[in-house]
C-alpha cells in the first residue's frame, strides 16, 4: 500500500485516540479564535487531517484486521479501549469525510446563516460534534460511548438552535430535540447500568463474553437490552420515536442539517448494531424477539408511514426528513432479518444513504442560499435557474428512489435479495411499494423543477443564478460518488459484508 507508506507510524498506532483528541482540543482553540475566516480555516484543516487519518485507519484496518488501542496503556477490561474493526472503520471514514465536505460547504452557507459573532462558536460546536460522533464509534467501552453520545448530542442541540438567526422555529426544534435526545441518552445509560449490574464490566467485549457465559443472562440483562434499544431508537429516529427529527432537520442551519442527516442517526444505528449483534447475540431468545418484532415491525411501519408523510409535506426539508425516517426503516429491516446478507445490506444502505441524503440537503441548502427556497412549490423552473444544483439534486434524488446506476439501487437490490433469500416476500413487496412512494415525493419536486417555468418577480423572469463553486463541488462530489457506487459497488459492498461477517461471526 503506497498510501500507508506516507502515513507516519505513530498516526496508525495512536490514530483512534488522535481522531477524538484533535477535534476536542481544536474545538476549545477555535472557540477563542477570531470570528472571520480564521475559525473556518482551522476547522477546515482539522477535518482535512481527520479525513486523511480516517482513510489511513480504514485501509490499515482492511489490511491487518481489528486493532484495539489501550488508552494510557491500561489493558482492558480495566482500562478504556478504542476498537477499530470492520464495523467501525467505514463509519469513522464516513463521519470524517462528511465533516470535511460539510465544512467546504459551510464557508458560504454560514456567512448567510450565522451571525458574525456566532461563527467561531459555531465551528467549535461543530468540531465537538465530530469528536463526539467519532468517539461513539471507536469507543469499546459502553460508558464511554455514553459520554461521547452526550458530547455529540449537546453540541448538536447548540448547532440546531443556531438556526434561530434564520428561522425562530429552530429554538423550539432544538428544545424538542434536547428533551427527546436526553431521554434517549438516559435510557441508554440506564441500560448500561443494568448491564454493569449483570456483568460487572463496562468493556463491550468483556460484556459479550460474560453474557455468553450466562447464556444471555437474567431478567436484568433483558431489561438492559430493552432500555438500550429504546434509548438508541430515539437517537436514530426509529419510527415512532422520530418526532424530534423533522423539526431539527428543517430549522437547523443548512450545514448542520447536512452533517446531521448523514452522520448522527447513522452513529446511533451503528451502536444498535454493536449492541444487538456484538454485546448481545441474536441467539438469545429475547434479542431474536426484539429483532423480529420490534426492529422489523417498526422498521416496516416506518418505511410506509414516513414515506406517506413525506408525500404530503409542503416543506422540502421536512419532506427529506421524513424520507430519512423511512430510510432508517430499510436499515432496521435489514438488521432485523439478521442474516449476513441482510445485515450487510442494511449497513450498506446506512453508508449509501448518508451520501445520498447529505448530498440532497447540500443541494437544498444551495437553493436556499440563492433563492431562499424551502417549499416544494418554490422549485418551479429550478432546472433553468440553477441547472447544476438541480442536476445534482436529480441524480441524488434518483439514487434515493433506487434507479439503476445509482448507489440507492445497489443497496435496495441487496436488501431485496437478502429478504427474498429468507423467503420474506412480503418485505420485498413493501420495499417495492416504498420505492414507488419515494418516486412520488421526489418526482413531484423534479416535475416542478423541470416542467414548470421560472417564476416572475415584478414582471421579470428570474434569471439563472447558480450556486457558488464551494457548494457545487461537494454536492457533485457526493452525486458522482453515488453514481460510481452504482456502477462498481464492489469496494463498499465488500466493506459492509466484512462488517456483517464480523457481527454475525460468519467471516
Amino acid at each position, binding site marked *: 500500500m503506497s498510501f500507508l507508506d506516507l502515513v507516519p507510524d505513530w498516526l496508525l498506532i495512536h490514530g483512534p485516540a488522535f481522531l477524538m483528541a484533535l477535534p476536542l482540543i481544536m474545538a476549545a482553540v477555535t472557540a477563542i479564535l477570531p470570528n472571520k475566516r480564521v475559525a473556518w480555516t482551522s476547522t477546515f484543516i482539522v477535518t482535512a487531517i481527520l479525513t486523511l487519518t480516517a482513510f489511513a485507519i480504514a485501509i490499515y484496518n482492511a489490511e491487518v484486521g481489528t486493532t484495539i488501542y489501550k488508552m494510557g496503556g491500561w489493558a482492558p477490561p480495566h482500562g478504556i479501549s478504542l476498537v477499530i474493526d470492520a464495523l467501525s472503520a467505514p463509519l469513522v471514514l464516513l463521519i470524517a469525510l462528511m465533516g470535511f465536505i460539510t465544512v467546504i460547504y459551510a464557508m458560504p452557507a454560514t456567512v448567510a446563516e450565522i451571525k458574525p459573532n456566532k461563527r467561531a462558536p459555531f465551528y467549535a460546536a461543530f468540531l465537538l460534534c465530530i469528536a463526539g460522533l467519532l468517539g461513539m464509534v471507536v469507543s469499546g467501552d459502553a460508558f464511554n460511548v455514553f459520554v461521547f453520545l452526550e458530547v455529540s448530542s449537546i453540541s448538536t442541540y447548540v448547532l440546531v438552535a443556531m438556526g434561530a438567526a434564520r428561522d425562530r422555529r429552530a429554538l423550539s426544534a432544538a428544545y424538542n430535540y434536547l428533551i427527546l435526545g436526553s431521554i434517549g441518552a438516559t435510557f441508554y445509560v440506564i441500560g448500561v447500568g443494568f448491564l454493569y449490574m449483570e456483568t460487572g464490566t463496562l468493556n463491550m467485549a468483556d460484556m459479550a463474553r460474560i453474557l455468553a457465559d450466562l447464556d444471555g443472562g437474567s431478567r436484568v440483562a433483558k431489561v438492559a437490552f430493552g432500555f438500550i434499544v429504546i434509548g438508541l431508537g430515539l437517537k436514530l429516529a426509529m419510527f415512532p420515536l422520530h418526532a424530534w427529527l423533522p423539526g431539527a432537520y428543517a430549522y437547523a442551519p443548512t450545514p448542520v442539517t447536512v452533517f446531521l442527516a448523514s452522520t448522527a442517526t447513522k452513529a446511533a444505528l451503528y451502536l444498535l448494531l454493536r449492541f444487538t449483534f456484538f454485546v448481545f447475540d441474536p441467539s438469545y431468545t429475547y434479542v431474536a424477539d426484539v429483532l423480529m418484532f420490534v426492529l422489523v415491525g417498526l422498521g416496516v411501519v416506518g418505511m410506509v408511514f414516513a414515506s406517506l408523510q413525506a408525500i404530503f409535506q409542503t416543506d422540502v426539508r421536512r419532506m427529506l426528513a421524513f424520507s430519512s425516517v423511512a430510510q432508517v426503516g430499510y436499515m432496521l429491516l435489514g438488521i432485523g432479518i439478521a442474516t449476513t446478507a441482510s445485515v450487510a445490506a442494511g449497513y450498506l444502505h446506512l453508508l449509501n444513504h448518508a451520501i445520498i441524503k447529505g448530498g440532497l440537503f447540500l443541494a437544498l441548502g444551495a437553493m436556499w442560499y440563492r433563492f431562499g427556497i424551502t417549499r416544494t412549490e418554490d422549485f418551479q423552473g429550478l432546472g433553468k435557474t440553477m441547472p447544476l444544483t438541480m442536476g445534482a439534486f436529480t441524480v441524488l434524488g434518483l439514487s434515493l428512489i433506487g434507479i439503476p446506476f445509482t448507489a440507492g439501487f445497489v443497496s435496495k437490490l441487496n436488501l431485496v435479495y437478502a429478504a427474498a433469500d429468507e423467503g420474506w*416476500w412480503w418485505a420485498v413487496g413493501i420495499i*417495492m411499494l416504498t420505492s414507488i412512494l419515494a418516486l412520488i415525493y421526489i418526482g413531484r419536486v423534479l416535475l416542478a423543477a423541470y*416542467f414548470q417555468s421560472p417564476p416572475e418577480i415584478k414582471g421579470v423572469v428570474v434569471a439563472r443564478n447558480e450556486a457558488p463553486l464551494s457548494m457545487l463541488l461537494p454536492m457533485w462530489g457526493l452525486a458522482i460518488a453515488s453514481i460510481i457506487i452504482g456502477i462498481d459497488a464492489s469496494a463498499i459492498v465488500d466493506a459492509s459484508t466484512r462488517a456483517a461477517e464480523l457481527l454475525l461471526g460468519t467471516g
Partner: protein
Amino acid sequence: MTPQIALALLLIIPLIAAVLIPIFGKSPNLREGVTFVAGVALLATVVYLCMDVAGGGRPELHFGSFAGKFDFTLKLEPLGATFAAIASSLWIVNSMFTLGYMRGNKEKNQTRFYACVAIAIAAAMGIAASANLITLFIFYEALTISTFPLVTHKGDAKAKRGGTIYALILMGTSLALLLPAILGTYVIAGTTDFVVGGIFPPGTSLFATSILLILFAFGIGKAALMPTHPWLPNAMVAPTPVSALLHAVAVVKAGVFTMLKVVTYTFGPSLTLATPSSTWLAWIAAISIVLASVIALRQDNLKARLAYSTVSQLSYITLGAMLAVSMGILGGGLQIVMHAWGKITLFMCAGAIYTIAHRTNISQLDGLGRTMPWVFGAFLVGALSIIGIPPLGGSWPKFFLMMGAVDSGKAILIAALIASSILNIIYLVPIAVRGFMKAPANPEDDAHIAEVRKKHRWVIIPPVITAIGSLVLFFFAGGIIDFLQPILPGGGL
C-alpha cells in the same frame, strides 16, 4: 467486419451522427447529409446483422457489469433484428419526410431536432439488441428522455403540457412498475437474460408470475395498453415527423417489442399460458383494441384519430403475446413490421396534408384528394393495410392472431379482432373517400394548393414509398415468419 463490431456500430453510428449534426448545424444541407449517410450506414449494418442472425448467429457484446450483479450486454436475436430493421429502414424514409416537413413549415431549432432523433434511434437500437432486461431498461429510459425535447419541440404551453404527460406516464410506469418487475424477476430467477423458452425455474409460484406479468404489462407504458395510453394522444403535439417515426414506429414498437420479449424470453410461452393473469391481460388487450377504435372514430383531428388507431393496433401485439401460443407470438412479431409501415404512411400523409394545405381536421379534407392524388392514394393503401385487406402486408398478422386465438382456446377474442377491423374501415377509409369523392368546399383554395404542391415534393414521395412497401411486404411475410421462428422454444411452428 465481425458481427460484434457491427453490434457496437448499431449504437455508434447514430451517436456519431448526433455529435456531427450540431457541428454542421450552420449548413442545413451538410447537416441533413449526416443524417442520410448515418441512416444508410446503419441500415447496411442491420442488414449484415440480419443475415448473420438468419444463419443462426447470435452476436454478443459484453460492455461490463454494474452493481456487482448485472451485466450490461448486447445480444441480437431474430425479434430484435426485426425491430432494428424496421427502425433503421424507416429512419431513412422518415428523414426525407422530415427534410420536406421541417423546411416546408420553417420550423425552428432544426439542429436540436435532428440530433435528438439520432439519439432516439441509438436508444431504439439498444433496446433491440439488449441481452437482458436491465440493459433493456436503461435504453428504454434513454429513449423516453431523448424523445422528450422532440415532443415539446414547439415550446408553447400546449407542447409543454403534452410533454409533461408524456414523460410522467412513461417514466412513472417504468419506474413504478417495470423496474420492480425486473427486480422481482431477478430475485426469483437469478438472472434477467433473454433465453429462448424463459428463465423461471420450474415450480415457480403462479401467483408470483401472475403479479410479475401484470407489472410488466402495465409497466411497459410504451406499449400503450389501456389505461396507460394517454401519453400517446398527448404526444401528438410533436411535429408530424416525430409522430411518424417515434410514435408510430420507434417508441411504441419498443414498447410492444419489450412485451413480446418478456413473454417469449423471460416467461416463455408455456409459463405465460399457465399464468392465470395472461388471460386477464388478453382480455384487457382486447378491450383496449375495441375501445381505442371507438374513441378514434370520434376524433375529427386527423393526428388524434391516427394516435388512437395506434393505441388499438398496439394492443393487437400485446394480445398476441398474452395468447402465448406460437401463432399469437409470430402474429405479434409480424404486426410490429406491418403496422410500422402502414401507420408511418398514414402519419406522413397527415404531415403532407398539413404542410401543403395547412389542414389538420378530417372535416376539412373534402375533395382534397383531387388536388393531392398521390398523398390520398398512399393514405388509402396504408389504411387498407392497417385494416388488414389482402394483398397488403397488414392482412397477415390479423390472420395469424385469429389462428392464435383459436389455438389458445379463446376463439371468442376473434370477435374483438373482427369488430376492430370493421371499426378501422369506418374511421380510416372515409378519410380517403372524402378526399376523392366529395366536392371541395372552396375550389379556389384547392387551386392554390395545387400550385404550392410542386414545392413540397419531399413530403409526398416518402409516404408513397412506404405505401408501396406495405404492398411488397405482403409477399415477404413468409420470409419474416421463417426468420422469427427460432424465437419459439422447440423450433416454432
